[in-house]
């Protein structure tokens, strides 16, 4: 499904990306996928098959909440927003990710 030039979002990082996008403003699913694609300058493409389950998972964990609203072009859409727990989670996950990336980088440079 994905184009060869784009990489699928790595498993496990999708949650982090979603949370980052939602930290700016509440957003609907399609908008989130667009923001990730744009933010990565088209490098990352979100697989819809994992986006919505991820949102569902985050909602069950209480990190995001959802509400039905109206989109810019007047369509009914489900908007997701970060909860307080989600904000904390984002901070933790970001730290975690940075440490992880640092470690991987360190190993790559060391060899």
């Amino acid at each position, binding site marked *: *499904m994905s184009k060869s030039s784009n990489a699928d979002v790595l498993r496990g990082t999708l949650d982090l990306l979603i949370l980052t996008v939602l930290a700016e403003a509440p957003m*609907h*699913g*399609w*908008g989130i*996928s*667009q923001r990730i694609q744009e933010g990565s300058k088209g490098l990352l493409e979100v*697989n*819809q*098959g994992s986006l*919505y*389950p991820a949102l*569902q*998972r985050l909602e*069950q964990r209480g990190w995001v909440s959802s509400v*039905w609203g109206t*989109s810019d*072009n007047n*369509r*009914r*859409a*489900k908007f997701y927003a970060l909860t307080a727990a989600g904000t904390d989670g984002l901070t933790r996950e970001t730290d975690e990710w940075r440490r992880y990336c640092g470690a991987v980088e360190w190993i790559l440079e060391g060899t």
Partner: protein
Amino acid sequence: MRASGRLQRLLRVFRGLRARFRHTLLRRRLDREMDDEIAFHLAMEAEKLESQGVDPAEARRRAAVAFGGVERHREALREGRRVPVLEPLVRDVRFGMRSLAREPGLTLAAVVTIALGVGATTAVFSVTRALLLRPLPIPEVDRLMSIQEQRSGAVSTGVEGMLIPYPRFEAYADATEGVFRSTAAVRLDGFALRLDDVTVHVDGALTSGGFFETVGIRPILGRVYTGDDDAEIVISHDLWLARFGGDPEVVGRRVALDGAAVTIVGVGPRGFRGVTAFADALWAPVGIRDLEPDSWGLRVVPLGRLADGVDRARAAAVVDAAAGAIPSDPNATIRGATLDPVQSVPVQGRGVVGAFLGLLLGLAVLVLLIAAANIASVLLARAFARRRETAVRLALGAGRARVVRHLLAEALLLFVAGGAAGVALAYLGTAALASIPLPPQAPVILDLAPDRTVLVFALAVTGGTGLVFGLVPALQASRPGLIGALRAGGWGATAGGGWTRDLFVGGQVALSVLLLATAALFAGSFRAGASVDPGFDAAGVVVARIDLGAPHDYDGGARLRFWSELRDRARAIPGVKSVGLAQLVLLSGDRWGGDVRAADDPDAPGVNAFSDFVGWGWFEALEVEIVEGRAFRPSDGPDAPPVAVVNQFAAERLWPGETAVGRRLRGAMNRSEEVEVVGVVRDGRYVFATEEPTAAVFQPLDQMSPTAASIHLRAPGSEARALRELGEIVRSMDADVALELAGPLEALIGFSLYPHRIAAGLVGAFGVVGLLLSALGLHGVLAHQVARRTREFGVRRALGAGTGDVVARVLGRGAVLAGAGCAVGLAAGWLVARGVGSFLYGVTPLGAPSLAAVAALLFAVAVGAGLVPALRAGRVAPARALRDE
């Protein structure tokens, strides 16, 4: 295995249910939202492509392709929707079911065990609820009060409460107008109801006109009476069905009530049986009794319905103030009055009934505790048998909470299944209880079937015990220290959780001793009561009470002629050997009497004596032995000198060491003059079989001619026929007179032993169940231990220990457990016995023989239960231990 196959089916059903639950309740809404969200996504994607110049149809196609298989996503999302809390629970339950299904025999035994405990507790609670807790079927019954006076002097209480003179009720009604919306007077009474072809005795109530308004009852047919017309009555729904076949034309029907012509003006609603536990068949205005309106003789209980916005305390203050202010009847001292909510068992009786039922409930809870301890020790054994599995799971990272959850789920499953079976048992048990005939003196209709409150109680009891007794083994078996079990190789270790099991088993033994000891006390009490020599022979005697009360126009002479003719005609009934009339029926709860004195010693203290008026022939009919002097004769008539017959106890108290015949006594009932003693009869029991020996004075019936009397017919072998013919004779003499409490004398005198009988039976059943359960528990513990120590026993045998050594070792352990349990149980039993002393008769609370016998029995059973595992241990071959390796 068939049982496990059945369980698999059950599991499938359960899974199906779970899915249905989620799908039906949530799926629709969630699916719609999900579809909306996907549609929105596709629309946005297509719009974006369109804005890049793609034509709309192609844009939609490409958007769908980019999204991937919509249906696949939907399934993935549905999967993700599982409720996070429920899911692990469902898994635990499934896990528990599987592991229970692996041992169907054990599971069944456990379920039966719990069912017995829950069943016993629930059944007793049902009875408690029916008697004490269930409100009467009256609208806003908590606002319906009865005025209960505190009086001294001559007082009389009925089952409806303290009876006070009617004029005082009227004064209360005036004084409480502000706090009661309406007031009414009520007293229970018996009536002879004459129908077309039969005259029957029915229980009912005399009421004032405001009764129905105050109680808040509307008739389902006709209307109620208001008291303006004394010749109107309302019949109960039960009587309407039983005697009038549910005939809708019954309203307006004229019948004779105690000889007075009355009209049935209404039929009460279904289920309404008056304001007490006793079932009223009809209600009649107090005026039907032809008493003067200002008579102090008519005694009633005042009822009042609180006015809107008035609370009980305020009304009670008004009533208490009125009690001292309104005119009092002569010879009475009134200390005040209280308000009691109208309840099926009035406040005076609640203490005794409540204590008795509380005792039974406590004993039922003991059965439940034994059952629960039994299950807990079995679960503990199972958990330890699986400790390798548990240790592996803990080692592989399963949280302890998760392991505990698993074990707890298993325990709760057992308890839920057992609880359900227990409720079924309770239904059967209460049905069996309801089928035990109540004594004829207590026309109570008890609805014993468990209702919703009882079910909630059963659920709470089951859940509570399941949680406590499931948690202990679960926590024990999941202790982190258990990891050692892995290293130890999973066999041979004797340590770990042992003391908890010992505690459970010892506790069971102790509780069983306690139960059995209590059961033995009650059984002893019942036996002692039943084997008391009452001083007369009730076998083969039938009895019926006949009331020639106020509404029948009998004066003293007419009554005398009636009794005399009745006696003569009854003697002619074929099969009747002897006939005796008496005012009272012995041992039926009838009580009358006063102090008597020896006439020749004015300073001698009075002797309180039971008193009865009996006709000539009565001593013969009841086979009361005359030890000195003579019985009454037909010549002891109204104009003859007053005479009396006393019992040995009275003779000994009044004239110690001297003969009583020919002496004179004062204080005989209805006699101001001295009365000559003409005979002495053997001592007996008079009011209750369990009473202390007491003095008794009999006077000739013909010298009193009471308005009501009981006729005793000794007709061995033809009791039913004698009673039938007696009914015909009475009807031919006066069709407005009914036989009351007609039946075998033995049924009537069973009344005083009824609680003993119920207690002995119930507690005995509890005790046997407890004994079985603790034997099972002990057997389980020892068998389990033997299985665990097979290798140890093998080694012992190999090192030269004989079979006897090994058997003794196992048995010894069982004996220590049983012994400790017995000791604790005996101590507790001794305490309980002291506490229930007031319910007992003829056994000392310290009933050492019964306590010791119970302990010995239990000890023997316990050791017997250990015998099988002990012998198995003794048979362990030395080589077995090595093979086990």
